[in-house]
């Protein structure tokens, strides 16, 4: 890292500072009242420096990131403090002044590139818009420049990729194209708002490397917003830890990561250290669930070919792989949503009907599912009482006061206060609480096997860790078996007994956790394992060097 050299070189003189926020206060409008969501935060950013903003959802990090552009979201307002960008106070600047700055001197890279690009225009047209609008360069120059930047960001076919539409490139490529777009006017400051959160680990590492590289090349200052401390420690020179709109801790990256001063920062660092104690080999010959040589397709597109796996009683099988590897499709075959073209699914040695419509109520009950997005997995118009109560009524014919008592018991089991939560609508719950309700709904059916489809990937790390611990405790208490679908190897290390690694619709490796996690690995498993960010600030450089050396 050349961070120290850079900062010492640039501490002399105030002109070095590109952005200063002093006593920044931002309010949000909810329930007819203005609530303060950022309580007087100070930020100083020098030219060419990368500052990491880290915290959980609701910490105000995105809000601060947008405020750096003098912008507040709908329903928010900047209520106090100063935002000085290169001598201009953005809180007092007129709309015209702000418009001249945004896109040309301050740029923004959003979390979801797929949502931020206009699907109706080609990438290069969207690239050229800002430089041409701001009168920085004519269209032809901008196009040449775009191709140059696409090359520097290691996009395949830099001359041609710009002429594709957003849906014709992958998520990681799109994110890099967006970074190129932000660079178009060679801004002094770029705000990166969780640019890799929506990506697979294997893609994330490429995007991280590309961003890091280009920011260094052009010596651009950047605000890097993320909830992942491991990621930010690769990117940032300095880190600010935020919580509930307040600053918790601030400092150079290495000291923060190696010797945090505050408890909250320590909690963030300690995340992903949860480990399930090892269990004995499964007893009995007949597995609870056996997937036998399953081949399946969506229409004519083949997705799975010859997938086999066993899930034994009271054990957790983690299915790992990147997007499109067929792990969720395997779950769909098991639940009967997608009948396989070949192969079958056995439950306790008995073949299950390929489609859920023909399975008995009892078969359905014993196999429950928890989804990735708790927002869409529970009906927003039903109360917690009805969401959890329905499986009780439906499968077990429990009604009236007995049902009420059982729902309360389930709420206690998932560590939510029954009196407080039983009458709430999902809209009145946080993401983690919603996921707990989903777990309670699955538990209400008294299942033997629960399929968890990326249950923690939509959640903050601390919340995700709590959910994992809860699932583990429930397994210990109730003797459940889990099929745990995830792309996050940290989760796998935490909770799995056995691991199944999938790639392009096939199982590449499977076996007990210890066996899979100790070398020698299958090549793809190796790639997955080495792509998981570590808290070490040198990790990214080291991995890239290793990979370069390997080639």
């Amino acid at each position: 890292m050349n961070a120290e050299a850079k900062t010492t070189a640039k501490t002399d003189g105030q002109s070095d500072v590109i952005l200063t926020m002093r006593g920044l206060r931002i309010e949000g409008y909810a329930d007819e009242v203005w609530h303060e969501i950022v309580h007087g935060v100070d930020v100083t950013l020098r030219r060419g420096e990368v500052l990491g903003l880290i915290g959980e959802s609701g910490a105000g990090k995105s809000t601060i990131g947008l405020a750096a552009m003098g912008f507040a979201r709908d329903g928010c307002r900047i209520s106090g403090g100063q935002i000085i960008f290169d001598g201009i106070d953005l809180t007092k600047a007129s709309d015209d002044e702000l418009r001249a700055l945004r896109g040309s001197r301050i740029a923004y890279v959003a979390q979801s590139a797929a949502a931020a690009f206009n699907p109706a225009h080609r990438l290069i047209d969207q690239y050229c818009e800002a430089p041409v609008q701001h009168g920085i360069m004519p269209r032809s120059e901008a196009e040449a420049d775009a191709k140059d930047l696409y090359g520097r960001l290691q996009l395949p076919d830099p001359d041609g990729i710009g002429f594709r539409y957003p849906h014709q490139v992958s998520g990681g490529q799109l994110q890099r194209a967006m970074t190129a777009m932000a660079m178009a006017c060679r801004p002094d400051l770029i705000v990166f708002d969780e640019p890799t959160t929506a990506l697979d680990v294997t893609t994330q590492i490429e995007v991280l490397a590309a961003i890091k590289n280009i920011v260094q090349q052009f010596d651009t200052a950047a605000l890097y917003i993320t909830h992942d401390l491991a990621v930010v420690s690769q990117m940032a020179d300095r880190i600010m830890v935020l919580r509930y709109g307040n600053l918790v801790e601030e400092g150079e990256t290495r000291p923060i990561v190696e010797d945090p001063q505050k408890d909250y920062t320590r909690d963030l660092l300690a995340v992903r250290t949860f480990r399930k104690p090892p269990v004995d080999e499964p007893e009995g010959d007949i597995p609870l669930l056996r997937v036998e040589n399953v081949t399946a397709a969506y229409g004519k597109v083949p997705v799975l070919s010859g997938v086999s796996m066993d899930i034994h009683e009271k054990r957790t099988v983690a299915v790992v792989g990147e997007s499109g590897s067929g792990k969720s499709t395997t779950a769909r075959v098991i639940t009967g949503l997608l009948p396989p073209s070949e192969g079958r699914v056995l439950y306790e040695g008995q073949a299950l009907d390929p489609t859920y419509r023909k399975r008995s109520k009892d078969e359905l009950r014993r196999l429950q599912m928890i989804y990735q997005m708790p927002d869409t997995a529970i009906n927003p118009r039903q109360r917690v009482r009805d969401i959890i109560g329905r499986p009780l009524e439906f499968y077990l014919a429990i009604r009236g006061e007995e049902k009420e008592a059982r729902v309360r018991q389930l709420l206690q089991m998932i560590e939510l206060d029954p009196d407080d939560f039983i009458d709430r609508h999902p809209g009145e719950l946080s993401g983690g609480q919603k996921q707990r309700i989903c777990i309670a709904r699955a538990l209400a059916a008294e299942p033997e096997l629960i399929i968890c489809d990326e249950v923690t990937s939509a959640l903050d790390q601390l919340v995700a860790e709590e959910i994992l611990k809860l699932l583990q405790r429930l397994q210990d208490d109730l003797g459940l078996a889990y099929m745990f679908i995830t792309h996050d190897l940290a989760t796998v290390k935490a909770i799995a007994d056995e691991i199944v690694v999938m790639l392009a619709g096939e199982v590449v490796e499977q076996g007990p956790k210890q066996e899979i996690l100790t070398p020698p690995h299958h090549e793809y498993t190796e790639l997955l394992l080495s792509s998981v960010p570590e808290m070490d600030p040198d990790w990214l450089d080291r991995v890239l060097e290793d990979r370069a050396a390997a080639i």
Partner: protein
Amino acid sequence: MTMAVAGSAFAGQSSPWVSRIAVAAVHFFVIVLFLGSVQTNTWAAILGFLAIHAYSVAVLVYWSRMARSAAGDTVIVALTVEYLLICVLFWELFSLWAWSTFFGLVLVQICAFAMVRYWRELRHAPPTAWFGMVVILIYVMIAATAPIIAPFGETEIVASEYEPWGGKFLMGTDNLGRDTLTRIIYGARNTVGFAFVTTVLAFVLGGFAGLLAATLRGWVDQALGRLVDILMAIPSLIFALLILTVVGTSIMSLVVVIAVLDSTRVFRLARAVAMNVVVLEFVEAANLRGEGLWWIIRREILPNVMPPLVAEFGLRFCFVFLFISALSFLGLGIQPPTADWGSMVRDNATLISFAAGDFQLALTPLVPAAAIALLTVGVNFVVDWFLHKASGLKE
């Protein structure tokens, strides 16, 4: 019996038994008092009714302050049932009013209940929405109490034709010598009432078919969709005129024909909105649980498509209302001697040419037209507000 229902609803919260018994006792006492005080005197009966209205609303306000929970809807149902029984008692004991009046009053009461129930949201409604709600409420009350407040009978010929405004006939008389004000009041009941029934029918038909098509997809969707396409391909006014000419212009056929024609639009909307809900994971979860079609439509999908459907109900109501008026104006709508705003405009249209002589008399055909316009504006104000709110809630 209703007391028991209301009582058990109160039991949902943890208030002590004493207060529950006290509430029940006061409740009972008040009702007995009202029943006892009413003579076979119309005014006393009206006062009695108003008092019971006010009282039930007060009970509800008390409840909504006490707690906000699922028990609320049970309380409303209980109070409405109880109110209905009181109305039956009135009717049995004193034979005061016709059934229609009685139903009208129940409708008013339900409106009042709904307003208390949703007071939290209503409180922040913009002035335009309040204006709309007040207009609608006044119309409903006029329609409900028409036989009481109208000075003459609906079809009664009380004087010579085209009497001037003022005196005994506040708005003069029409082309047959019937009191215009009376006809306007009864017109509210007929025009608004038929439009309401028709719209409800259109929504039941179209809404159900739309949800069914979205949930089942496949050939059911195709069959229903193409059928609707065929119906929508023919201009609706011409189609309605054609059918009504064939089947005759009874109220029944009028309601059914317009409802079927309008249900095609409802079908399209319900299907489109439900399509977005059907693909969500909670519907998949319900499917995997093994739930039946009826449960999935009613409990998983319907509550999530309600806001746009309710907004559409308001708009559709206006269209139906104008459609009936237009048909009446053309002579194929509600038939004489039933009072109806559309046909009143047509019957008195010639009076406009007297504007130079008797300005007020010339206004006569404009009064029902204005009544139509005002209600349309009012409903649209409310719908606008509701749509705005519903879209805001989605975040």
